[in-house]
């Protein structure tokens, strides 16, 4: 196993409360996942990538924003790994980074859509520019 960044791996395990080393690569999470086909990395893969410390690839992956947080994987994983909580920890990690290209208030009017709920507009401030 190549440890790209053990420190990063520990950070994600800490934030998510998930010990990804409990994973036995059964694939139950990926078999269950309704968003599988839209993901570049699949649930069992991001669990393994955290163990291996390959956090950077995950942070820039599509999967991070394709996961529906439906928790089907959490419900069914036989090892109690909770893959969706890993996703959440990765999202939070990204959002907490300082000095990145967050959306600014000025950008919002251009993006407005009258169907968007208020909450989504507020949370958009925490997101990056595409």
């Amino acid at each position: 196993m190549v440890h790209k960044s053990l420190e990063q791996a520990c950070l994600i395990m800490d934030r998510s409360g998930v010990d990804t080393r409990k994973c036995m690569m059964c694939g139950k999470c990926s078999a269950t996942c309704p968003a599988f086909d839209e993901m570049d990395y699949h649930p069992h893969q991001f669990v393994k990538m955290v163990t291996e410390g390959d956090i950077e690839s995950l942070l820039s992956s599509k999967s991070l924003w394709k996961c529906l947080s439906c928790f089907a994987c959490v419900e069914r994983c036989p090892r109690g790994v909770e893959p969706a909580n890993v996703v959440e920890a990765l999202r939070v990690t990204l959002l907490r980074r300082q000095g990145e290209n967050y959306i600014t208030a000025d950008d919002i009017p251009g993006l407005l859509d009258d169907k968007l709920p208020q909450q989504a507009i507020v949370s958009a401030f925490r997101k990056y520019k595409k």
Partner: protein
Amino acid sequence: MQKIGVFVCWCGSNIAATVDVAEVVQAVKTQPGVAFATDYQYMCSEAGQSIIKNAIKEHDLTGIVVCSCSPRMHEATFRKTAQAAGLNPYMVEIANIREHCSWIHKDKNEATQKAIILANAAVAKVNLNAPLVQGESSVTKRALVIGGGIAGIQTALDIAEAGYEVDIVEKEPTIGGKMAQLDKTFPTLDCSACILTPKMVDVAANENITLYTYSEVEQVKGFVGNFSVTIKKKARYVKEDLCTGCGECMSKCPSKKGKDEFNCGLNNRTAINIPFAQAIPNVAYIDAEQCIKFKTGKCGLCEKTCSANAIDYNQKDEIIEREYGAIVMATGYEPIKLDKFDEYQYSKHPDVITSLELERIMNAAGPTGGTLLKMSDKEHPHSVTFIQCVGSRDISGRGKPYCSKICCMYTAKHAMLIRDKYPDVEVNVFYIDVRTPGKNFDEFYRRAVEEYGVNYIKGQVGKVYEKDGHLVVQAVDLIANKQLVLDTDMVVLATAIEPSKTARDLASMLTASIDTNDFITEAHPKLRPVESPTAGIFLSGVCQGPKDIPETVSQAGAAAAKVIGLLAKDKLLTNPCVAHSDELLCNGCSQCEKVCPYGAISYIDKEVNDHGVRETRRVAQVNEALCQGCGACTVTCPSGAMDLKGFTNRQIMAEVDAICK
């Protein structure tokens, strides 16, 4: 004053790498009573034992302390060594500086200090040790086997073959266990009934074997060599000596709604029933819950039909008391319930079945006469999907944390048998790992793939659902990194197995230990795999851990050998570390009698001389043959009258003082 020798073992590097043994030797030399101390690489070896023997003679030692591994490992060894040198074996104490010290510590200095403390405690105890003499007890030359599956059958046959009487208690109406339900058996694919039923007949024919079927163990008293067991033989409402097993009653019985347990409930059976044609004993029983006569008082058709006059609606449960020298647990297993796995639709869809149900469907005597059919419409399936590890290796709380061990092999067997008999059926197997260690086992699995064209897909099934009248499996192929959605006609779940639900209660009756999964614990996982830590209790088959038939039969034979070894003895030496009561302190309160699990304490009226006052008092008396030295009475006694030889309160306090110094 004692003259104590201390022998510190290195255990190769097991102890010496973490504990400075020379420092321990120097430190204990300053302890009161220590006349000699030394260390050696392997104290248990021939040379190590000679060092002990020579020191005992040379220094006239009156007691020894061996600082080594757990007393469970070598206490008996060093007691023998001491005895050979003329020392009473109960003048030996073990300080466990391996399991309790070197194996669990990293820092050498700390570990050494702890080893010194443990050694000092043992020395403090030996200072107060007194020579003890073992008593003798008799051996009842009969064994009891609980459970009549292949494990129990083989153990009983082997014991009987050696000339000893053996009784089998089986809770079901027939012996045979799960093996009787199987169709063909891996790795040779011989028919299960063809190899099992002759053994069942041997059991019935063997003069040394008494069979109690439809029976359960109610109570166990006593100890190794002298167990006294209460067996409840449930009423069958059919006289065993008269029934010929002709089955006429079954053809007349109008109550046909009972679930046929032998066929895993896939079909119904009559209220009066013989589980299968080769049942032993081949005797009917009435399921009172289903019987119309019992429910309404009317019917009685079986009584009228039976030409042997065997029916007896008034039969009562019978209580049998028997004495045994040894008891073998052979209570086997059950597949787990699948109610927590609703993603597989097991309880909703008749074409989602367990592997054991498939065995019955494939069996010529089963509900479909041995033809592979969908249970929903009795049509031929065109594709079958197997899912392995259903509930095994699962720490989420839904299943069992262990590998059930047999499923990889029986799934390969099922897949192969289906492809062999029905080459038109597509067979997919979803697996996490294929585990096939065993003679000719991996070859067997590879044959399923290479010769029979079974598709093995690494990955799990997320869910099974019904769409347009057929089953759909959503799964993952981890090697292709793809999610799959497959139509299938049948789904077979390789369901985890768990020990019999009765194991826990039985174990507590037998004071046998049990693990967190309810498997009965062996005395030593490597060196004493068929004995329970409780003397006289032996283990056979899956009740000890998941096993296939070859392994079960080997273990069954090994358990029999151990039982025979015990029954062959005329006398057993008893443990002299038993309780005794100081009659001057005893106030006759009866507390100890209540807590004694072995019924070893009774009360007598005895004349005592209490500092010149002669009076008759009611005092506790311990039957040394019954006492197992558990010590429950000593902690219960409010007046401090009860004490345990070899573990007196003074000895324990001396140890505690030495540790706290």
